[in-house]
């Protein structure tokens, strides 16, 4: 039997087929409730992220970790700043030494300071 031979039966069956969906009685109210709940939640995940971070932070491991990282950051920052300041001071003093031993640099600096 070829598939085309079944077509009138299929068409009849499809014509008889009826779907009667059953809608719960308070479906509309439930839908609005869900919409309201979704709108009440923050759109961006930052707040949720912050909440979970602030819940995680008071745990001993987290607080020790955060303190260590911040201390390390402070130490590195202080070290970098000190190196930079020392370098600047050193450059200024080496220039000052050169001016103190080279009369041409002294005269030149004096000429520029008068201008």
């Amino acid at each position, binding site marked *: 039997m070829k598939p085309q031979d079944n077509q009138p039966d299929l068409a009849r069956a499809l014509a008889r087929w009826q779907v009667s969906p059953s809608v719960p009685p308070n479906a509309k109210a439930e839908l609005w409730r869900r919409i309201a709940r979704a709108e009440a939640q923050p759109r961006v995940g930052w707040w949720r992220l912050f909440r979970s971070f602030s819940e995680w932070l008071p745990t001993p491991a987290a607080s020790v970790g955060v303190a260590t990282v911040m201390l390390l950051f402070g130490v590195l920052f202080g070290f970098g700043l000190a190196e930079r300041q020392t370098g600047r001071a050193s450059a200024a003093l080496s220039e000052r*030494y050169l001016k103190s031993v080279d009369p041409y640099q002294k005269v030149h600096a004096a000429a520029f300071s008068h201008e």
Partner: protein
Amino acid sequence: MKRSAIILASGLLLAVLGAAITFKVCHRTPAAAAAPELGWLAAEFQLSPADCKRIEEFHHSYQEQCARMCEKIARKNQEIRELLAKTNAVTPELSQKLNEAALLRSECHARMLEHFLKVSAAMPPEQGRRYLDWVLERTILADSGMVSHPPSGAHNGEH
């Protein structure tokens, strides 16, 4: 939430304290208040207190010579300036002043070199060689024109 804020604030305080203590420990400033450039020299070339004292004496006695040379240079520069204000040609008089300035420069360089060699000899040999290279590159060997190189590179290209 409150505990988290306290932990974060404590972390920040730790960071600030860590930065301040590290800065205090690592920031080096030469101690000599009267001549900080000599303090820098001692630190840079790792001089012992005895070497440092000797170099300080050389430095102070050289300062008198240096001041005299400065006066001569300033006077010669002024003379050249005055002549240049009167003429726009290389007159024999101007040419003579330029020769005098060149002679003065060579005399200055000889005095400077004498001082540098003295200071270098007062240092440990390795540091003495390093000092001599460093100071010559920035003074005598850096000179190429009528006026020595700019002190901070701020006036590069003006001469």
